C-alpha cells in the first residue's frame, strides 16, 4: 500500500517538469502545446547520443542537451508558432500537433523503433521502512524538486520571472510597461525547453528510450497542468504529484490497463467544478 503511494509520487515527479513547461507556455503564449511529448522524446535521444556515442556521463550530457534544446525550442517557435501568433489558440494547437508528428518521426528516422536505455548500470534499490527506492527515482526526486525551487525563485524573485508572469497576465500592458514581449517569449521557450529536456531524460531513465515515449505522457501532463490551474507553476507541480498518486493508487481498485482513464476523469471533474484549477486565477479573457 505504502509502496504504491510512493510509486505514485515517483510517477508524479516525472510528470511535474513537463507539466511545468506546459503551464509556462500556456501562461505566456495562451495555447496548449501538444508537441511537448515529442519534444521530450527528441531531448531524451540527444542525451542518449551524448551519453552512449560520445560516452559523456549523464550529468554533463543532460546539462548540455538541455541548453542546446532550449535554443532549439526558440528556433522551432520562430519557424512554427511566431507566424501564427495572431491566429488564436486553436490554430497554434493544431500546428503543435503537426510539430509533434515531425519531431517524433525525426527521432524514429534517426534511431529506429528499438527500445534503448542510457549507459548507466541499474542498481538494486535502497530499502527504507519497507519502501523500495531505486537510484533513478532518487535522482528524479532531487532533480525535479531542484528545478521547481529554481523556477519558484525565478518567477517570484527575478525580473525575468516577473516579466513572464506580467506578459502572461496582460500582454498589451506588459509592452506599455517597457517589457519586450518578443524577448520574454524567447526566454519562456528556452526555460520550457530545458524543463522538457530534463523531463525527457527522467522518462528515459525510468522506462526506456523509444520514439512514442513522450506521447504516452501527454494526457497525464495536461491533466496535471489543468489540475494545478493553467498558468500557475506551483499548481502544475502539485497537480502532477496528485495525478501520479491518484492514478497509481487507483490500480489497486481498477484493472491497471485503464489507468490512463484516471487523469482523464480528473480533467473532466476539474473542468466542471473548478475550471481555474486548484491554484490558478480565473482567466480574464478580454
Amino acid at each position: 500500500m505504502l509502496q504504491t503511494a510512493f510509486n505514485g509520487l515517483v510517477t508524479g515527479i516525472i510528470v511535474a517538469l513537463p507539466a511545468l513547461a506546459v503551464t509556462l507556455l500556456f501562461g505566456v503564449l495562451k495555447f496548449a502545446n501538444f508537441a511537448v511529448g515529442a519534444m521530450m522524446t527528441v531531448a531524451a535521444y540527444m542525451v542518449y547520443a551524448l551519453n552512449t556515442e560520445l560516452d559523456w556521463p549523464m550529468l554533463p550530457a543532460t546539462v548540455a542537451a538541455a541548453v542546446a534544446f532550449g535554443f532549439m525550442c526558440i528556433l522551432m517557435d520562430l519557424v512554427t508558432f511566431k507566424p501564427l501568433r495572431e491566429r488564436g489558440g486553436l490554430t497554434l494547437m493544431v500546428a503543435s500537433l503537426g510539430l509533434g508528428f515531425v519531431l517524433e518521426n525525426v527521432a524514429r528516422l534517426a534511431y529506429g523503433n528499438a527500445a534503448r536505455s542510457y549507459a548507466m548500470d541499474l542498481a538494486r534499490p535502497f530499502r527504507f521502512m519497507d519502501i523500495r527506492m531505486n537510484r533513478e527515482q532518487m535522482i528524479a526526486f532531487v532533480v525535479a524538486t531542484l528545478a521547481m525551487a529554481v523556477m519558484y525563485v525565478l518567477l517570484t524573485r527575478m525580473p525575468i520571472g516577473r516579466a513572464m508572469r506580467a506578459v502572461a497576465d496582460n500582454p498589451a500592458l506588459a509592452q506599455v510597461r517597457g517589457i519586450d514581449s518578443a524577448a520574454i517569449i524567447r526566454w519562456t521557450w528556452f526555460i520550457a525547453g530545458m524543463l522538457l529536456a530534463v523531463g525527457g531524460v527522467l522518462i528515459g531513465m525510468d522506462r526506456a528510450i523509444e520514439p512514442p515515449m513522450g506521447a504516452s505522457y501527454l494526457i497525464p501532463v495536461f491533466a496535471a497542468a489543468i489540475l494545478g490551474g493553467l498558468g500557475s507553476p506551483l499548481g502544475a507541480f502539485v497537480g502532477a504529484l496528485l495525478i501520479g498518486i491518484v492514478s497509481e493508487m487507483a490500480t489497486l481498485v481498477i484493472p491497471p490497463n485503464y489507468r490512463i482513464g484516471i487523469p482523464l476523469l480528473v480533467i473532466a471533474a476539474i473542468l466542471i467544478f473548478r475550471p481555474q484549477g486548484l491554484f490558478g486565477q480565473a482567466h480574464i479573457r478580454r
Partner: protein
Amino acid sequence: MIEFIVLMGIVVCFSGILALALNFQWGLGGMVNFGLAGFYALGAYSCALLMLKGGFNTFFAALGAMVIVGAVCGLVAFVTLRVTEEDYFAIVTLGVGEMLRLVALNEDWLTKGALGLTGIPRPLGATIPPTSYPYFMLALSIALVIACLWALNRLSRSPFGRVVRAVREDDVVAATLGKNVLWARVRIFAIGGVLIGLAGSLHAFYYQYIDPTQFSTIVIAYAFMAVIAGGRGAHLGTVLGAAVVMLLLEGSRFAKELVPLEADQLAAVRIIIIGVGLILLLIYRPHGFLREYRLQATLKEERPEPQPNTPKEAAT
C-alpha cells in the same frame, strides 16, 4: 490496375467523409477534435457489432453507428463545453479518444480485443459477385460523399449554418446575440459525430476486419491535413484535400523505387512530410486551395460576412 484505383477511390471516399466531419466540427464550428481516431473506432465497432452480435442488416447497422457516435459526441460536448473555452475541449477529446481505443483493445468479451472482429458483412455483399463488388462499393461511397456534401452545404446556408460560423468567430459575441451557444455547439459536434459514424461504418464494410491498430493517431494526422489542405470550412475542398493526402501517401508507397530510403525510414519520412505540410499550409495557405463558402449571393439582403479572422488589436 484499374481495380486498385477503384479500391483506393473507396478509401478516399470514407477518409473524405471523416475529413468532412472534422471540417464541420473544427473548420466551421471551431471545436478541435483530437480524439477523432477513438470516435472513428467507435463508429466502426458499433456498426460491426450491431451486425455480428445484434443481427441487424448493413443499413440499420450503419444508421445505428451514426446515432451512437453522434450521441457520444454530443454528450462529450455538453459535459465539457458547459464550462470552459475550447482549448480544454481539445485536451478532453484527446483523452476520450484514447479511452475509446483502450476499451476496444481490452474488452475481449465484446470486441475480441487485439484479435479484432472478422467476417464483417458488406452491403449487398451476398448478392453482388466479389469480382465486381468494388465497383458497386465505389458508386455507393461516391453517392454518400455527394449526399454529405449536399447536406452540409444546405446546413451551412441555413440559419443554423450562420450560428455555426458566429460561434466560431467569437462565442462571446454569438452569446450576446441571443444564440444559445452551448446548444449550438452540442449540435455541431453531434452532427460531426454522425459523419464519423458513417465513415467508421464504411471502413468496417471495406476492410471486413477491424482491430485497434487501424485506429491509431496517424488517422488524426491525415484528417487534419485533409481539412487544412482543402481549406477550413470548404466542404468540397476538404474532400479534395482528402484525395490529395491519400494520393500523396499511396503515391509515396509507389515511390519506393524513386526514394533511396529503407522501408522503415520511408514510413517515418512520410509522417514528417505530413507534419511539415500541415504547418506550412496553416501559415501560408490558411484557406487551403479553396476559399470558404461566402454568402456573396445573398449580399443584397444582408451586409456581407465579416472577414473570417479579422486581426484583433495588433499587439506587437
